[in-house]
């Protein structure tokens, strides 16, 4: 079963950025808002709340199809696997993902791609995001 991070109750988000800091510390070993595969954005003024952008683990991923070097390959069951060695920094995937879940690492000039580890969800104080098997929403 493939897991992914799902945004289940965005209106409960308090905009604490704990999820972003979790990803940056776990995956990049640093504290940063630039290096995180999950992004918190304001929905246009804090009074309107927030938007969480994270990889949806598409079953037929546009980012993969856009990648000219084969650095991105589909993960069985949905989502994508990134092989940095093959990446030529063309930014095609960044453009291809219309939800903007491909974050660009300006320092390395490489995409930041979610690894579906679920670490970020452990730090959401309001269960806005959950780590769940794909297709679970079909079961309820």
């Amino acid at each position, binding site marked *: 079963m493939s897991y992914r991070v799902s945004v289940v109750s965005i209106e409960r988000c308090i905009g*604490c*950025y704990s999820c972003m800091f979790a990803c940056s510390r776990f995956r990049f*070993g*640093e*504290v*940063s808002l630039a290096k995180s595969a999950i*992004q918190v*954005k304001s929905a246009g003024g*804090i009074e309107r*709340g927030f938007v969480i952008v994270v990889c949806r683990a598409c079953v037929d991923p546009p980012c993969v199809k856009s990648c000219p070097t084969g650095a991105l390959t589909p993960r069985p069951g949905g989502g994508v696997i990134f092989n940095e060695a093959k990446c030529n920094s063309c930014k095609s995937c960044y453009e291809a993902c219309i939800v903007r879940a491909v974050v660009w690492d300006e320092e390395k000039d490489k995409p930041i791609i979610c690894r579906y580890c679920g670490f970020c969800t452990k730090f959401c104080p309001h269960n806005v995001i959950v780590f769940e098997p794909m297709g679970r929403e079909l079961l309820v």
Partner: protein
Amino acid sequence: MINSSLYNVLYIDLTERKYEVQERRDLFEKYLGGAGVAVKLLEEECPKGVDPFSPDNPIILAVGPLTGLYPLASKTVAMFKSPLTGNLGESHAGGRSAVAIRLAGYGAIVIKGSSRTPVYISIFNDQVRIKDATTLWGMRSSYAVGRVLREIEPGAGKRTIMRIGIAGENLVRYANVVVESYRHFGRLGLGAVFGSKKLKAIVIAGTRGVKVYDLKAYMKVYEEIFRSITETGVMSKYHVLGTAENVLPLNAMGALPTRNLMQTRFELAENISGETLAEKYLVRKIACTHCPIGCIHLASLRIAFAPGYEYETLVIPYDYEPIYSLGSMLGIGSAEGLLRLIEKVEGLGLDAISVGVAMAWATEAYQRGLVTDKETMGLRPNWGEDVEVYIRMAEKIARRANEFYSALADGVEVAASKYGGLDFALTCGGNEVPGYHTGPAAIVGFLTGPRHSHLDSAGYSIDQKALRGPMIEEEMVKQIVEEEKFRNVLTSLVICLFARGEYKLEKVVRALEPLGIRTSPEELMKLGAEIQRAKASFKAREGFNPYNMRIAKRFLETPTPLGKLSEERLRDMIRMYIEMAGLKSVYATLD
């Protein structure tokens, strides 16, 4: 410590329109950051006896070693010479400010000089730009300024936008700086200092990363603190009702200043309580960056502005302090009226406590005939009877509409010195008083605290302990002194004071260790004492004298839950404070 970007101090000169970065490892290694570093920079940068509105008065913003790294290390400390009290100006704000400063690559920012035309400062990592703000000057509402800057500046969602309203432009001595629409550098007039420099706003964003010395240990301590904060309920009250939860308990014990402290119980408290606001108006709770609690409560208010089902919907932040100062103090017992007044005051960029206390005094002065329709320009304040009067009054103060409102804009003490009524002009050390008439510890805390705020030493909580079991005055003062030192530690790190229950000294020591900073609880408290002394020295240098502070009669006449206060005892306690805090030599020439 390898995250050395904290040592970077950005110096901006608005007169010369230039900037430079200096490495100040010396300051951060010795004083951690925040309040500790800021007070040292203030000593360095602020010339003795300077006019607070002179270009030479510096604005200092500082964060600390924990900023961005741990939950609730979410505050920025501002220091300056206060145009309200004429001595130490210190004010703290959260929002996105602290993390933005740190991730832009700085530990502190010092702004000096002044511009001839309105400007705003835009900081994005190492790009620092001073930009034209002519079109923003005079804008009716601070909210609108935020909206414009959101469109034109980079870093959406992660940046801080600090700006002043027209109160700051007009040098109202308690004008604030609004941060992210809902947070503030509230007290002591930072907004007026911005205004005097023709500085309308500062936008800061950054994409830098901070590395720690021992990642594994850091992740472990982080997780422990995070779990404790979010799962044990140490902080849940701040999320549930927020600080507004204080309204009913303070009212029940007879400590909620009402109608300029003629009373301490408000018969309409229920209507403006945290419970009522939450049940009827609360629509969203939000957090400062890296705070999993989220104490910011936003109310929504639908107002019909014309016949034909024409509605406007306002989103308004509320907290205990404005409920007190713009609610019970003015006898306003309708939630709708209160929220409308808060919204106005926010938009004008006035400190809610100061302007509320000023208008409460004005109401009493008007009723006693000390001022007439001529001074008030026809406004007839009569406590909660007509909120519209107060909405217009706040506007007139922000615009310094005539001599009377201009005096109010200089602080209630100035107005009362001019028109009479000092006995009921409620300031401590020149700062309008916060809303806790709980007993001697609260008042002594306001009088002795370096910023004359309830946040200096939280005397109100000591009074409440004394209510549960008798406490002698020495003990009260001892607790005030110790609490103030402890808070100096937290505000140097910089930890939100609401998290004081979690960040006990032992925990702070453990949180610092993975960053390569070794210390002990004793050493931290020594630092707290040193900062206490540094603040007092600055105050003394600027002419503050704790021995002859004015104590308004009203504080003594209106009983607290611990009985009536005596001036003599309060002055004794001030002396005890000076003695116990080891500040006798600081104030030696004044005694």
